[in-house]
């Protein structure tokens, strides 16, 4: 009897190492249920945030009368509320994600998404999932219901590499569905122009979303090891290009490194987190390094 994919994706050793870490959003988002994430909305929390000068129209209930008595000035007292957040996983399932050894980039991305989903549910965060290639194939809106993890797992389980990539179109379509501020995690191999990618992610950031970009790559596409002349067939367009190994040794590697740098810079420009995940890397270490990084950003 084979092991269910959900268990296979959520590897126990990975989860054991992640058990002491908390996924903390960089910004506090609004939520329905109380959790570990700080809400971006100040309100009925017990934790004091700041004072602000009273403006006409402010609710008089939040006026700190003690300060008024000492300073004869009217200040509004503001609090930080603690609540859960919405985590939306956006998985690129284009044909190019089917490439890679020892496991394909898509497999690695599925492991990553499943781990993140499990962690999110463990923190009682609302979990959403979108699968896209040229367009959005499946989308589960962020939900804190107990079965949201199961639904996400089921969707991931039947995900296979599709056709071409159009990350711009996909994010454009998803942006309308993600009205609730939270954490958006994009897992893709980013075969798109860096500027266009930035213009696609920027509206999410401007909408208050905290964006993390996982750039999933394979060693063979970073540094191809071909020694003979070959006709390389594009997985997405199925067009063949006859390529000399000499070009792959020099010109291609430089171009690809430049592309990776431009994607990273684009993410940094818009305040998104960028992490590169190789198919040969241990997944737990990748998650740990990312979560530590998020933790630092959260302080």
């Amino acid at each position, binding site marked *: 009897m084979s092991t269910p994919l959900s268990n296979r994706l959520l590897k126990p050793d990975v989860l054991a190492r992640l058990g002491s870490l908390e996924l903390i959003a960089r910004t506090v988002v609004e939520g329905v249920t109380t959790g570990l994430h700080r809400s971006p909305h100040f309100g009925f929390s017990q934790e004091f945030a700041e004072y602000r000068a009273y403006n006409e129209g402010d609710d008089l209930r939040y006026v700190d009368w003690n300060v008024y008595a000492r300073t004869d000035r009217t200040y509004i007292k503001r609090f930080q509320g603690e609540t859960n957040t919405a985590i939306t996983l956006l998985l690129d399932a284009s044909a*190019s*994600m089917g*490439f890679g050894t020892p496991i394909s*980039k898509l497999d690695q991305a599925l492991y990553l998404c499943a781990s993140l989903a499990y962690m999110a549910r463990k923190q009682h965060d609302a979990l959403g999932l979108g699968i896209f290639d040229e367009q959005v194939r499946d989308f589960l809106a962020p939900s804190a219901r107990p079965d949201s993890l199961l639904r996400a797992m089921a969707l991931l389980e039947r995900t296979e590499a599709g056709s071409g990539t159009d990350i711009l179109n996909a994010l454009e379509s998803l942006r309308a569905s993600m009205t609730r501020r939270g954490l958006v995690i994009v897992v893709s*191999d980013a*075969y798109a122009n860096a500027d266009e990618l930035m213009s696609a992610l920027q509206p999410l950031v401007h909408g208050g979303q905290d964006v993390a970009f996982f750039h999933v790559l*394979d060693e063979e*596409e970073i540094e*191809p090891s*071909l020694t*003979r*002349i*070959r*006709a*390389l*067939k*594009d*997985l*997405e*367009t199925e*067009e*063949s*290009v*006859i*390529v*000399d*190994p000499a*070009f792959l040794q020099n*010109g*291609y590697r430089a*171009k*690809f490194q430049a*592309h990776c740098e431009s994607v990273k810079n684009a993410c940094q420009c818009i305040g998104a987190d960028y992490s590169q995940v190789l198919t040969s890397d241990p997944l737990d270490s990748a998650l740990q390094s990312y979560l530590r990084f998020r933790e630092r950003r959260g302080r």
Partner: protein
Amino acid sequence: MSLLFPAYLIGLAGLFLPWLLHRFSDQQPEEQLFPSRQFLEPTAPPVSRKRALKHWLLLALRVLSILCLSFLFAQPWLSKMGDDTQANVHHLISIDQSLSMRADGRWARAVDRADALIEELPDSDTIELVAFARDVNRIADDSESVSALRRALKGLEPLYTSADYGVMMQRLNQVAGEYSQPVKVWLISDQQQSALPAQINALYAPEVSLWDQMSVVPEAQVNVHLSASAQSDDGANLRVSVQLRASAAEPDSADSVPDTAITRYTVQVRSDDRLLLEEVFSLQAGDIVSRVFDDLVIPPGKNPVLRVSLLEPDALLDDNEVFLMIGQTNPTPVVLLQGERASQDAASVFLTTALETDSLASVQAIAGTAERAPPETVHIVAAQDLTLPSIALDVLQFVDTDANAMVFDNSVSESSSDGVIQGVGVGLVDESHPLGLGQIDWFGARFYDVGAMVLQENDRVLLETDDRQPLLVERSTERGTLLLLNDRLDGLSSNLPLQPAFVSLMEAVLAYFDASTAIPDQLIAGSRVSLPANVQLFDPDNESLLTLADNARIGGIALDRPGLYKVVGARGEHSLRVLLDPRETDLSLISGDAMVAWNARYEDAETVANTDVTKDLPVDPILLLQGDDVNRYSLWFWLLPLMVMFLLTESVFANRRLDVRRDGS
């Protein structure tokens, strides 16, 4: 231009296999999946590349292929260096034995030349004597002794048949193909124009390495061919047609000028010793003169033979006399066997009237059975009850003597006349039969009372009524022809005897009967004639030609001598004239252009041979150029497949190992 060894082209085609493999098997490099071509740039594939010498196996295969190719091309010289002593030649002395060699002095000169040739040829070579006319006969060789060869030569004499140089050369080519050593043909002939084949290519014998021909016509010769025929329309007066055709042999080497003088020739027509006609003809070489003499009277006697002769001697005497039989246009005799029934009287009238239309046949009515028919009778018409399962024995015995019989029905009608007023017409007609029944208009023929004829297993139904009743049937017999007409011919059971179709039918039957038993009146010497069984054939000297065993079977016999033959059988005697082929008596020689075209190929080879060191021996010059046939073929048989194998392996290996596209693009 022609290829000396066309079979090598197959080997040459084999050299293209590696190129084809390169062209089609490795046009595109191997395909490999890649996530995206976004950062890839199409690369022009290098045609060559500097690389360290690491494919040693590939190098070895290529070197071996080149070595094989070099040895293949160098092989003729290698063979010559290794084996100069194997140039023994087989000589084929081919003597023309046709009729024209009977012309004045030709045959004697041919024998002398052959004899001298046998004397001159070196002892190390082998000699074979062949004679040709219509076909090539291998006479003898010197395997026993040269004297035996000379005896065989002395025993030869010219025939009366014609020659064909094309047939001769093709046959000599087959003979030469039996020898591994080079073969030289010495052709001793009169180089007659009429013996040339229609296409000059038929004169080429690729297996013959060397060639020489000798003419036996040193001086100009003139021959007049006499042909004649005699015909009588009424059995009393005689019409004789005589034709003379003069031809001349004028060799280029002769000192005499072409003979254009008009010569007078006297033609006599005799019957026994009685002179019927003497006429003088004036003609020169190339003329054809014909005259018809129709004021002669048939000499007395049964079947007189006329002898037409040319008095002045010419180069070829054998065609100066011909014997003629007087051809008469007599109607074909047919015997009608009359029965006792009165109903057959009407049938006899209808049959006689139809058969004697246009004097095609003369009907003789005889009462009784076929046994009472005159001995010369070939065709009979008899009445028989066809509802019985078998035909009367006397008719079958008559047919079994290579005769013909038509049997019609005389059974008693048992049907009433009710319901048969309309009758039935003719349905199926076997148009493929030589009778040609499809050409007869059967439209008006109606049959009211057709008897229930009993068919046998091998009967061929030639004519049927609309209701599938057989009307005309050919019954299979071992000899002769037997036709069964299922009609009473009384004008009551059918209206067939009253129809024009009946006359046409009788004419067709008569023509079919004549064709089935005909022996030709004349033949060309050397032709075969098919004779019926139980006949004897006498030659012009009145000697029987067929043995007892030959008599009992049907077959053909070739008649090589000209003259008047006689075919004697149970029905009398038939004369058969065997004539000389008029083309063969035309002594005109082959034109200079044709001779040049014939000898050109061998003359080229001869030129090369004469420039070589071995001038005293008739060594094959093609052999000197190309090496011995046996060695050449043996080396090719080994080296060519080896080289192809090397190239194929090299091709596959190179395509697998090298990063170089080899499609030539």
